[in-house]
């Protein structure tokens, strides 16, 4: 097996392995976004889910840059994500320089942020589209059919994995679980703010601290975020690069 094939095989297993106790949807989607960047040699990937009201919400992205998050947020009015979500169809290889008629607000904004090409793949369960994977490239390179197919496979495996982990059985449960996941994202944003202020770091660094702490201590990312916001987990504990005793320091106030 070539290195690439090994990487693919490992990644598929990683994305399917969601039946773990400490499964955290936001953390999982962050991983998925990073893997898609690696797969496609893209610049950035964002994963968007629709809330109960049909509003598209950014759940995770390959970086925590505010500009990037906002690029997803403005797509509730126009853009590749909205088209993909509404139609359930892939939006592939769109050159932003030519896209002003199609997306008069989104296209110039995306170009201003340094991107040249954009794609959107549906995250769907049977006939229902629950979200979108939004891919940005800083170069003009077009994706081949094979790359699109692989990227869609990642998205499909991840969607199944999400639903397995949440033990979804019916649509009603799906709506509730998604709403819960969206709220998790908000907790994480609030926690980023708390940490950024306490540690005097930027939002990217704040997110990395939360994520590292969660993984090192085997706690769900959302739970770490909630503890950071309500103060049961102090900034001092989160400042440490790793848990020195590798043990149970979670959730204890000084």
């Amino acid at each position, binding site marked *: 097996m070539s290195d690439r094939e090994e990487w693919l095989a490992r990644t598929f297993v990683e994305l399917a392995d969601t039946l773990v106790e400490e499964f955290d949807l936001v953390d999982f989607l962050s991983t998925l976004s990073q893997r898609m960047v690696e797969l496609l040699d893209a610049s950035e990937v964002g994963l968007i889910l629709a*809330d*109960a*009201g*049909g*509003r598209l*919400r*950014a759940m995770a992205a390959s970086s925590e840059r*505010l500009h990037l*998050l*906002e690029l997803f*947020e403005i797509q*509730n*009015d126009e853009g590749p994500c909205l088209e993909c979500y509404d139609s359930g169809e892939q939006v592939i290889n769109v050159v932003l320089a030519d896209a002003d008629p199609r997306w008069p607000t989104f296209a110039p904004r995306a170009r201003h942020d340094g991107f040249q090409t954009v794609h959107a793949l549906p995250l769907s369960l049977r006939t229902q589209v629950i979200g979108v994977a939004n891919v940005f490239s800083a170069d003009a390179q077009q994706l081949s059919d094979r790359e699109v197919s692989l990227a869609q496979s990642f998205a499909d495996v991840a969607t199944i994995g999400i639903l397995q982990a949440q033990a979804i059985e*019916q*649509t*009603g449960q799906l*709506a*509730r679980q998604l*709403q*819960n996941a969206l*709220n998790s994202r*908000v*907790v*994480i*944003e*609030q*926690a*980023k*703010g*708390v*940490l*950024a*202020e*306490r540690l005097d770091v930027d*939002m990217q660094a704040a997110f990395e601290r939360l994520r590292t702490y969660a993984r090192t201590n085997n706690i769900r990312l959302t739970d770490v*975020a*909630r503890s950071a*916001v*309500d103060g049961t987990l102090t900034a001092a504990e989160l400042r440490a690069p790793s848990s020195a005793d590798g043990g149970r320091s979670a959730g204890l106030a000084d």
Partner: protein
Amino acid sequence: MTSPAFGHILSALGGGDDLTAVPLDEVTHRCAAVTGMSGASIVLVADDEQDAVTATSGPAVTELEQVQFMVGEGPGRDAHRTGRVVLAPALGTPDDRWPEFSAAANRLGLEAAFAFPLRVGAITLGPLTLYRTNRGALDGTALTEALVLADVITQIVLAWHGSDDDVVSMPVSDLLDDRAVVHQATGMVSVQLSCSVRDALTRIRAYAFANDVPVDVVAHQIVERTLRFHP
């Protein structure tokens, strides 16, 4: 920008009124009407859970909420505690989760309860509970509608509740701010003011309103550190 569903529910509730100026009991009554339910309650729980402000659509629900508070069990309480939607399509079955609560509910003619936590991330206000006089599950559409209603009520309550006993009344449609920058700013301000995230969000909104600046612009200034809040 609000989603069509949010806007639809908001106008169904409002009928042209400024909902932040309508008494909460009346808002609760409208919640029941909009969702085709027999009754509803909104309970705003204090941080220590010792106090609560309860608004209801009528006397039967008022009495039931008093029971829930006294016995310390019930769907609304579970929804608030867990942050999850609690659906009880049949109250008073043999394996009922809340025997005392459900017995009281049945006595009052209520057979089903659906409780939705009102929250924005780590900000949790309390449950919105919808009650019905007949048993039966919420279908997909009704559930989705109720989830959107919970979002709308959350925004109304956050707009209605001011700091320092001043009720800050702001148009609800201007306040749907689920953008990342606003939540980040909320976290930062909660540290700057040593207050809860709920109070931090209220302060940010009040500042935006007082200075006639959009909330997300204020949030940007906070995150870019050109604006700080001081106690």
